[in-house]
């Protein structure tokens, strides 16, 4: 898997490169600023890009802007954005650039390397990955507005993990359910919230996110 990495802090860039290589990824370019990132995204044809939001020269959301721009020019270009702080606005902007092949995670998540590399793979495969913190905020908001009152606590747990972009297998493993139990819960959730069910994993994530963002 060919990866472009953008991170301005040397220590983190080095650590991430090592982690990705250890898990069999080929880091074809690692850059430390916005303009070189955009060039690498468009010219190196990576399978996935791992991008820090804040990059030089402006030290604002340069990395995010480059990722958005690259996805506008190459629709479906897989990008996983890392940030010291997650913001719903940025999550929405990323989701708006096309269906899937996009991820948004807190930087802290890289410390769990297995999970992190799994997220990179899912994004590269066209999936949608959202940080649990984004989802928690969305769920709290939906709860306050009475949008998910009909769900049982179990179903809420499943909904949360679905929204993060986990597959049924992963949800079953984390919550210690059987896969068929997870399938039953998801069917219930879709029926109660009146979301059209979908066999495609990514479509399912997008439908759930769209519902929670209402």
């Amino acid at each position, binding site marked *: 898997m060919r990866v472009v990495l953008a991170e301005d802090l040397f220590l983190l860039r080095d650590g991430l490169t090592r982690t990705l290589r250890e898990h069999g990824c080929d880091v074809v370019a690692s850059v430390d600023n*916005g*303009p070189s*990132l*955009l060039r690498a995204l468009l010219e190196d044809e990576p399978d996935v890009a791992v991008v820090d*939001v*804040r990059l030089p*020269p*402006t030290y*604002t*959301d*340069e990395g995010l*802007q*480059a990722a958005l*721009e690259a996805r506008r020019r190459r629709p479906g270009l897989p990008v996983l954005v890392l940030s*010291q*702080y997650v*913001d*719903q*606005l*940025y999550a*929405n902007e990323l989701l708006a650039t096309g269906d899937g092949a996009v991820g948004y995670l807190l930087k*802290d998540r890289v*410390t769990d390397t297995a999970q992190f590399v799994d997220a990179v793979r899912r994004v590269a495969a066209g999936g949608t990955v959202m940080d649990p913190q984004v989802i928690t*905020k969305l769920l709290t*908001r939906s709860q*306050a*507005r009475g949008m998910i009152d009909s769900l049982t606590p179990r179903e809420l747990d499943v909904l949360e993990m679905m929204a993060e972009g986990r597959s049924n297998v992963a949800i079953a493993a984390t919550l210690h359910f059987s896969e068929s139990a997870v399938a039953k819960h998801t069917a219930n959730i879709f029926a109660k919230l009146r979301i059209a069910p979908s066999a495609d994993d990514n479509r399912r994530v997008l439908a759930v996110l769209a519902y929670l963002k209402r």
Partner: protein
Amino acid sequence: MRAKERLVAVARCQLAGLLAVAGSAVGSLVVLALLLLPVGVGFWLLVPGATTLRSLSDRSRERATRWTGTRITPPEPYSGDHSWSRRRRAGAILAAEGFWRDLAWAWLEPWVGGFLVGVPLGFLWYGGFGALVQPFVWPLLGPDNWYAFVPVEDTPTMLAALVLGVVFMAAGLLLAPPILRLHGRWTRRLLSVPRRTEMVRRIAHLTDTRAEVLDVQAAELRRIERDLHDGAQARLVSLGLTLDSATRLLDSDPAAARKLLLEVAETSARALEDLRNLVHGIHPPVLADRGLGDAVRSLALDSFLDVGVDVRLSGRLPSPVESAAYFAVGELLANAAKHAAAREVAIVLDHDGGRLRVTVTDDGRGGADPAKGTGLRGLRRRLESFDGVLTLHSPPGGPTTATLEIPCALSSPKTSSC
């Protein structure tokens, strides 16, 4: 739209004329009071006369600001209340510079101001007569009937007068807005306190707000210090201790060491979380990245209410202003959710060339009073150091509209480098 503005200007000229007449009436009363001071009766008359005159001149100041944007600094209110003796209050009034200013205005305004606003009104009324009334009544007006320079004797001359009347009306409409602006400037000349007084007041205000800013800043630093001390710092210390125990257990009890190391991972995650919250409280990253518009949009997304955001800013504002406005909007949103039990909120961000204007309207139960809540009072105080003002319109039953205005420049939009 422009025609409507002109008609409004005409109505305002009319109102200014009426106010001038009222001013002169009260002015005469006040002069009478002054003349009667030696016999004592004047003291009875002076206090109500002067306060009425002040309320009239205040109205005139406020109108000039509202109609033409001419800012007029009002004089200090008269000192003293009902507990003072009449003589003492009258003395305070006579010693106040603003009183004599009001009196001069009461006498000059009917002549100068009245003449000014009379010009467009005269054109309009006389034009209206020529164009709308005379065509029907000219046969009754006799043989020596002139309209301006047209002798109205038959249908053709009547029609000529009609055209002239229309021209006069148009002239009246055309003249009304500039004349109204001129009247505003004249009002400012008469009714504004002298430059020196304005400066003295400004310095007193700056001294106050500077002290306040320093206090707030010191308190903020103390809060950050405390948060770091109780949060991230404490967690790092515990992390060190746990790591130490884990190291010692590594050989004797690897399973326990492993448990401790998992604890370390959790504590470090918490420390990061603490730092993140702290940073967000100091200066939210989205505000630094994108400016006020997107930062408020982000607030709206996080709010439990339905928040509509309309951003009409074409550039970036000075960073301290952005920060103050952001936290103010955050507080107003929280108020709308907590106290007003609102469901929908509309936020408009606007810059009129000289000041940022933010309006937050909710559909809650209203009745908000800055005198009661410490939140709103604190908000108002914080805005004061930017010369900002918060106006609150919150009748019982709602809706509540909070408007905050901060004078500042708008810089051109930042050009992205990628």
